[in-house]
């Protein structure tokens, strides 16, 4: 009887140990590993801001563009006994997923991965959380209606490659009481015809970062066409307003590290799990308004709205 009781106690102890494995890994080590895909300059600020936010020692590891560049890198990273891995770029995110296959007690936060869904980073993996590289369609639409409150119907061209974003866009438009008028294209050359088809039915147009849509030739044409059709055209890269479209809403990469750092602290210090967090949209925006184009299309942007913009082109 006594022996049976000891066995039960041992079993309970074992269960507690197994259940608390992710918490234990986080508490055992104070170090956070930062894994970079390569030496891209773009990672510099997120690494700095993440390191400042996390307020723990960090060790930086670099794949140098190839997971096989240093065959010992995985070993070196685990030798640091990281409490969490912050992976920047697609290769680093993929490597972090692969390397933690047997170490799912180590949480991973990834960022700066274009089209993260393509890599199935979170599929069947509860230790993976992240920040999408693309601004959420809702953030684009919310800013559109701040700078042009009259917008009710938004035009969108998409390709099979951006089908998932189209679904998110539909949902966000519903949430904000907007109508989405969308048209799918299979070739980049189809853009002009598709645009002309929807142009008369919309007040604004959202340019997707889709390889079939976002080409220099298409952007050049869209800039002229948006002015001709007096459409409030919006995109999600820094360049888009400089190229002559009215509004650019893009992610503030300086703040990306702060967001990831806060997510990491919520996991390491406040018991949130990567699964609870999932993949967040980048929450911080940089907004550029092209007032010259706004004047050409007859949109009068209020001074109050202009104060929300990070920068303004023209007067």
């Amino acid at each position, binding site marked *: 009887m006594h022996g049976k009781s000891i066995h039960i106690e041992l079993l309970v102890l074992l269960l507690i140990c197994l259940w608390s494995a992710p918490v234990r890994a986080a508490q055992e080590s104070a170090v956070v590993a930062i894994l970079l895909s390569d030496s891209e300059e773009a990672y510099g600020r997120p690494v700095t*801001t993440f390191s*400042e*936010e996390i307020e723990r020692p960090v060790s930086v590891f670099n794949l140098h563009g190839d997971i096989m560049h240093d065959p010992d890198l995985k070993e070196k990273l685990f030798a640091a006994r990281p409490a969490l891995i912050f992976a920047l770029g697609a290769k680093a995110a993929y490597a972090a997923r692969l390397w933690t296959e047997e170490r799912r007690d180590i949480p991973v936060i990834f960022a700066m991965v274009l089209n993260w869904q393509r890599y199935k980073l979170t599929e069947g993996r509860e230790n993976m959380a992240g920040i999408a590289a693309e601004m*959420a369609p*809702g*953030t684009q639409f*919310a*800013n559109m*209606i*701040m700078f042009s*409150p009259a917008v009710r119907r938004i035009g969108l061209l998409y390709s099979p490659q951006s089908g998932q974003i189209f679904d998110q866009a539909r949902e*966000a438009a519903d*949430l*904000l*009481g907007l109508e989405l008028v969308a048209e799918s294209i299979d070739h980049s050359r189809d853009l002009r015809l598709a645009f002309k088809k929807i142009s008369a039915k919309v007040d604004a147009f959202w340019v997707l970062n889709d390889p079939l849509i976002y080409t220099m030739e298409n952007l050049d044409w869209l800039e002229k066409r948006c002015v001709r059709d007096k459409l409030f055209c919006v995109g999600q890269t820094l360049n888009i307003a400089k190229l002559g479209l009215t509004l650019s809403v893009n992610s*503030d990469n*300086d*703040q990306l590290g*702060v*967001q990831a750092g*806060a*997510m990491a602290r*919520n996991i390491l210090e*406040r018991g*949130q799990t990567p699964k609870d*967090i999932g993949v*967040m*949209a980048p*929450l*911080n*925006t940089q*907004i550029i308004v092209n007032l010259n184009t706004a004047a050409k299309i007859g949109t009068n942007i*209020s001074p*109050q*709205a*202009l*104060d*929300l*913009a*990070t*920068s*303004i082109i023209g007067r």
Partner: protein
Amino acid sequence: MKHLLRNNRKNVVALLFAVFSWWWPHTPGHTAPASFFYFCPDSPQNNFTRLKEAMDALLTEGGFSYSFQAFAHFKDFERQVRDDPPGFLLLPEWYLRQKDNAGRFKPILVPLRQGVSTYRKALLVSVDSDLTLAKLADATIAMTPVGQEGMTMLNEVIFKTHGLNGDKLKFIYTAKDYDALFALALRQVQAALVAVDNMEYVERINPKIVSAVKILAVSEPIPRPLICYDKNAVPAADVEKLKTFLLAGKQNEKTAKIMEMLQIDAWQVYSY
């Protein structure tokens, strides 16, 4: 010989440089910091290029040699204050409570809006959310960053009253209040802590965003950001000059522009 002479010349230049480097910062007029730092994440103003233009023009008109620098990110601001100390600052009141900041920076002016020197923050959730204050500990909350002392202040003015401890809540920091508000309206987070003034500001532009959220709780009054100066570095004459200059308020076109940009109605002498 030539080689020796060249080396000697190098040594003399090095010696002169060393003496000059030692002497230069000790010369009166060269030690005073040349910057006016701004860090106000709860302000409605995000266009720092426009703000810097207006503020530099104002300072030049007043005969000041300070250059205005605005910070969007808290850690950048903290780092710069440490590495390249400014003469004047416009900063959140809680920053003064941090470490030995109160011993170093002295507040001189407080902005007023609608006659008061305080504002309130609102704890928001989505309009159709069933999240209650009791369940807030499990939610992700977006808000602008605060240091440890800022969190102590938030505990006092809002969290403690509702049985919450800010140190245990799951925050995600945004550089601007609007980003926190938009993130909530778009269901990217479960809650947000945002200045009521900023909610009203957004509502005036387009009520759609604000109609997507509802208020769970409102804080006690929070002091508005203060204009301070570095006690050990700024000459008293500069302090008095800036005070007089800003207290003139809307009588000066350039001051009026800044006040309009920062949503300030008047300045008041700090006297607490």
